[in-house]
């Protein structure tokens, strides 16, 4: 194994003085400068500020006051507000928005001594599964630059895959952490709804949104989640439940773990090139002492239809705040107030965002609310009850993260439904507010394949432990695209 391929090893390297945070940061900035024209992973690079925080981190390291994350470079998805730094959410609407405050997790990771390199590209307002709806242009998949990285956290996943940084924050409303993590061959965790504060995370669908992280390994995810999770009174959905010691939970023995294989995830539409590696991952867990049984959740296939009522409805409400008056884009020479609203929003939002606002406005409008929104929330209760029944029998549910590997740029932009079906396996966990992960488990014609783990509420430690056990047996998470060095501490190597 390469010496410095993970956040955990970089953390050790910094303490052992094998390199300084400034050196790591300079190397990361050089990689960003070299890859940005092709991959377009970042919307904003904060090089000077990064070097300043790296210098401060080096002082803490020298003084012996450093924590496990001190001095490690990282990237924030551009959905998280960062004081004094452009925060666009991938939209023209916010292309001039300089945040006056930090999101909760930005504060937490800053306090932990991490060095922010910049802000990751993303689908506009997190609406998309390919990063092609970004106002700032698509991100390209480092494994094959003719293909998409997935979305909406496409910039975050591609940045970790290209080893620009060992971690990037992300958010997940219907799969936006797990799907790009799978398509880019990296590890992603969407925690339980309410586990990580959303204060300062620009809202999309409030009953589904959750902040999380994309990393190289499950161990790195555990280290980061430790710093991000916990109660925050500023987010009314943040839960006041103690945060366990995730590093300790990683060591949980796998023997006796009851894995349920999601029957509904292995049907029509799943490519054999994905199914093979996922079945092999199950065999690996079984070898390690887990029991594997098939489980059926009959209402789960209704998740996509339910999502396309609930998510657009909540989005249409959340995005009503963008009015061209207090912040964000304003049209030129408005004739009157109505014209100001309508043209500012027409110019500020892209086609996919408009489509979802119109859909959401329709399903919430008088006479349709019961048939659409209330009906969807009833079906959502059925899906949640299915999960609850399953978790009486098993500890973790496992299946593929996506039906196919990364697809080509432009392949699915003409028909929104084919794009939406990319999230067919990920949406369920959001419906029920469950924690879920995707970890790399193989390659399909040279493209990464992800296996998904879903657990009961607040079972992050168990998911991380199962993923960690798998990653001790295999090296899929350490594989990198051609020409990308797995060593974060290396200088220019391409």
């Amino acid at each position: 194994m390469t010496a410095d391929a993970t956040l955990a090893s970089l953390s050790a390297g910094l303490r052992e003085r094998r390199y300084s945070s400034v050196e790591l940061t300079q190397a990361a900035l050089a990689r960003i400068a070299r890859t940005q024209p092709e991959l377009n992973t970042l919307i904003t690079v904060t090089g000077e500020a990064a070097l300043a925080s790296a210098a401060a981190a080096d002082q803490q390291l020298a003084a012996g006051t450093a924590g496990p994350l001190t001095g490690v470079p990282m990237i924030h998805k551009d959905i998280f507000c960062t004081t004094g730094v452009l925060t666009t959410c991938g939209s023209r609407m916010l292309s001039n928005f300089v945040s006056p405050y930090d999101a909760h997790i930005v504060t937490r990771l800053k306090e932990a001594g991490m060095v922010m390199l910049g802000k990751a590209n993303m689908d506009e307002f997190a609406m998309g599964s390919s990063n092609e709806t970004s106002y700032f242009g698509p991100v390209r998949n480092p494994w094959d630059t003719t293909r998409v990285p997935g979305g909406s956290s496409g910039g975050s996943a591609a940045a970790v895959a290209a080893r620009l940084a060992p971690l990037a924050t992300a958010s997940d409303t219907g799969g936006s952490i797990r799907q790009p993590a799978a398509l880019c061959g990296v590890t992603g965790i969407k925690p339980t709804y309410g586990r990580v504060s959303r204060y300062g995370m620009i809202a999309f669908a409030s009953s589904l949104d959750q902040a999380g992280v994309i990393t190289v390994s499950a161990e790195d995810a555990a280290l980061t989640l430790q710093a991000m999770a916990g109660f925050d009174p500023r987010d009314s959905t943040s839960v006041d439940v103690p945060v366990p010691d995730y590093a300790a939970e990683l060591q949980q023995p796998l023997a006796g773990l009851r894995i349920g294989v999601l029957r509904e995830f292995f049907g029509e539409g799943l490519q054999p090139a994905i199914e093979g590696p996922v079945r092999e991952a199950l065999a690996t867990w079984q070898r390690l002492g887990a029991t594997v049984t098939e489980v059926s959740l009959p209402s789960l296939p209704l998740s996509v239809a339910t999502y396309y009522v609930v998510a657009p409805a909540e989005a249409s409400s959340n995005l009503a705040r963008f009015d061209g008056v207090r912040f964000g884009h304003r049209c030129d020479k408005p004739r009157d107030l109505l014209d100001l609203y309508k043209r500012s929003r027409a110019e500020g939002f892209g086609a996919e965002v408009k489509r979802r606002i119109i859909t959401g406005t329709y399903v919430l409008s008088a006479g349709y609310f019961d048939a659409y929104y209330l009906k969807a929330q009833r079906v959502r209760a059925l899906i949640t009850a299915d999960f609850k029944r399953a978790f009486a029998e098993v500890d973790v549910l496992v299946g593929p993260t996506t039906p196919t590997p990364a697809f080509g740029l432009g392949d699915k932009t003409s028909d929104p439904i084919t794009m939406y079906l990319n999230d067919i396996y990920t949406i369920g966990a959001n419906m029920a507010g469950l924690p879920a992960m995707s970890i790399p488990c193989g390659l399909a014609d040279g493209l990464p394949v992800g296996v998904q783990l879903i657990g009961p509420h607040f079972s992050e430690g168990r998911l991380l432990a199962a993923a960690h056990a798998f990653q001790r047996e295999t090296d899929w998470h350490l594989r990198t695209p051609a020409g990308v060095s797995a060593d974060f501490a290396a200088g220019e190597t391409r």
Partner: protein
Amino acid sequence: MSLTPKQIESIAHLARLELDVADVPRYAESISSILRLVSELEGVNTGDVAPMAHPLEGQVQRLRADVVTSGNLRETLQGNAPQTEAGLYLVPKVIE
């Protein structure tokens, strides 16, 4: 279920979105296909199942006292406004 271009225009108005006339048929078509996808829910027997109100069982939104918690940030916040004057947000004349 499908929506006509005329319906799309009226919903867009409710959402305060100006749509390019040329784009309206495309929105009508794609949103109709979303509604067809969603129509799968119609046939689901939800009986007397209560609509889900929160992803975590037994959780409700926390409330807080309606009091000022941060100081006066008007200048900082108006730094992002397209147009202000004397501490006020400027919009086109509303009352003749």
